[in-house]
């Protein structure tokens, strides 16, 4: 796509390789993220959004494997990189933060050592210099008295504090891309807003692009520039974030917006019945042929038995539905 993109994913297919034929977990996922852009990838559990993130970071593990497509990061094809080249990239140019910071941090190392490690590994700094940088990094994520906190172990910190440490580690080397996989889901609402703003502020300052992965359409719609909605391994809609919540095009996105009891909705419209999306989220092996959302879709017709192609809307927006709004 356009030349200023730092990440360009084309037709990414990830499959479950096991006994028998490979089972497609994602189907030709394409998107691109521009320099400094905040891009949202939204979907429910099992839709393949986290798999895409892991594939980009080169962290996909058996039985999952990339079976097709291209991931160009800063002009280099991530699929062709050697493991050592990928390691040099990870934590340095691409970094990740996860949902549960407790399991992502090493419980036996002080947070200072864990942040400093990044500078030792990717910047070749000595222990003393790395420590100074670690204090600086903790300061950036607004941890109070960082000289003292640097000697703390993860279990001595609260959940919000641990997530700040994770952010400090991830952004230590000023990466070009930060992949944030449900970074606030495990946190309290009051802390969530704070953490999200922190990530956005820091990335804006460092020119880091953010790939925000979430099940929370409301959060993503508010903070991102562009949003892609995934369902059953496919991107079903990619939109300007301003439009995705107010005028969703795909029946699935529309369903999600309608089904959510959004704050203030009852004041506006009373305690009406929530619009349900019937049925259940299909499991990996049971992805429907044709339009994958058709079995749960109120607008489905005979035409939906054929897999729909991606239709271009205005402004580079795209939707995968013949009955889009």
């Amino acid at each position: 796509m356009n030349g200023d993109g730092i990440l360009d994913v084309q037709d990414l297919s990830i499959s479950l390789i096991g006994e028998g034929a490979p089972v497609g977990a994602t189907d030709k996922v394409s998107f691109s993220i521009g320099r400094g852009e905040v891009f949202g990838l939204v979907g429910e559990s099992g839709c393949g959004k986290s798999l895409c993130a892991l594939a980009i970071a080169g962290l996909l593990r058996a039985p999952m494997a990339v079976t097709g497509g291209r991931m160009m990061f800063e002009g280099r094809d991530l699929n062709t990189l050697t493991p050592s080249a990928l390691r040099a990239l990870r934590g340095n140019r691409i970094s990740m933060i996860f949902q549960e910071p407790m399991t992502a941090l090493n419980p036996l190392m002080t947070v200072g050592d864990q942040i400093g490690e990044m500078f030792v590994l990717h910047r070749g700094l000595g222990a003393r210099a790395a420590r100074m940088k670690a204090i600086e990094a903790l300061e950036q994520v607004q941890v109070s008295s960082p000289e003292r906190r640097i000697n703390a172990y993860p279990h001595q910190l609260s959940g919000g504090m641990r997530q700040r440490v994770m952010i400090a580690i991830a952004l230590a080397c000023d990466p070009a891309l930060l992949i944030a996989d449900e970074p606030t889901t495990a946190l309290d609402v009051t802390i969530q807003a704070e953490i999200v703003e922190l990530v956005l502020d820091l990335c804006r300052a460092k020119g880091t692009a953010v790939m925000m992965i979430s099940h929370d359409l409301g959060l993503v719609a508010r903070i991102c520039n562009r949003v892609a909605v995934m369902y059953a391994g496919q991107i079903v809609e990619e939109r300007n974030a301003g439009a995705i919540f107010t005028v969703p095009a795909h029946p699935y996105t529309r369903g999600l917006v309608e089904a959510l009891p959004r704050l203030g909705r009852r004041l506006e419209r009373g305690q009406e019945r929530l619009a349900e999306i019937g049925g259940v989220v299909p499991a990996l092996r049971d992805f429907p042929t044709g339009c994958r959302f058709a079995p749960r879709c109120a607008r489905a017709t005979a035409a939906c038995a054929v897999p729909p192609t991606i239709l271009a809307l205005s402004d580079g927006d795209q939707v995968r539905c013949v009955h889009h709004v």
Partner: protein
Amino acid sequence: MSDPNELLTIQGLKVHYTIGSGWRGRPTAVKAVDGLDLHLRAGECLGLVGESGCGKSSVAQAILGLVPATAGRVTLDGHEITGPRKVDPMQLARSAQMVFQDPMSSLNPRQTIRQILSGPLRLHGMADRDERAHRVTEMLRMVGMKPDAADRMPHAFSGGQRQRLCIARALIVRPRLVICDEPVSALDVSIRAQIINLLLDLKTELGIALLLISHDLGVVEHMSDRIAVMYLGRIVEEGGWRQIFTAPAHPYTRALISAIPDPMHRDRVPARLSGEIPSALSPPPGCAFHPRCPVALPACRTGAAPDFTPTGPDHRARCHLIEVPAHA
């Protein structure tokens, strides 16, 4: 308060846990719930809101008799739950039941749905064999499941279906109160509406009262008739849902509401609430919220915690500053 419709009354409830027992350390009391007042009318949905660690779950466990109350009085459906004259646990089980957050671990994986649903009926001697089978089928229908679900094992069902089954189990002994602890937050977003609608339908159909424990204010607003906001073991504000959301009286309630991002108004940046909830091991003196309060006065930092100040019919809050506008 002597409302004839009152189903649950909690007065001055304290639940303190002792940690660090034996020779390993000095025992310390964690004041999970510390002087909580709450009341819930029959057929009403009360939303209990608060951050993790504020003691919400301890309240639920105390109502169900799963943890002993350190002090205070809990009355449910005319029965004393605490103190020396406390009700038989079997009677309590027929009055209050619970639906948990994670439906995956809430059903015994080694029992069929029929065993899970009819076991309580047998325990409580509520029906003979034929009647039990009938009640199981009837209950499954009420929660939107087919009768053939009865003879399958829990692993055959998806998260949303399991939550329906959990609701069925809670309702099978026909309790008057169902405590729902984050009933939808472990579910897929597209499934949540189904469960929310189901709970509200059952509330109307059976006249059960719901105690909805949640941090999702959108869900709380949608489902609740009344709302209580909890902070560090106490209720800091309670009132009708409309009052809480249109005219929140406590600064904490205001902060909670404004922390929610509004996807419809992308330019409105959510308010930040500085700091995190203090530990229940060492609650701050004075008003427990003062270290995080944007409008705290020196008076809030010392002395006793503020008492409830009525701010309208059936609406009250614990804050020193509520009367300030009246004096100004």
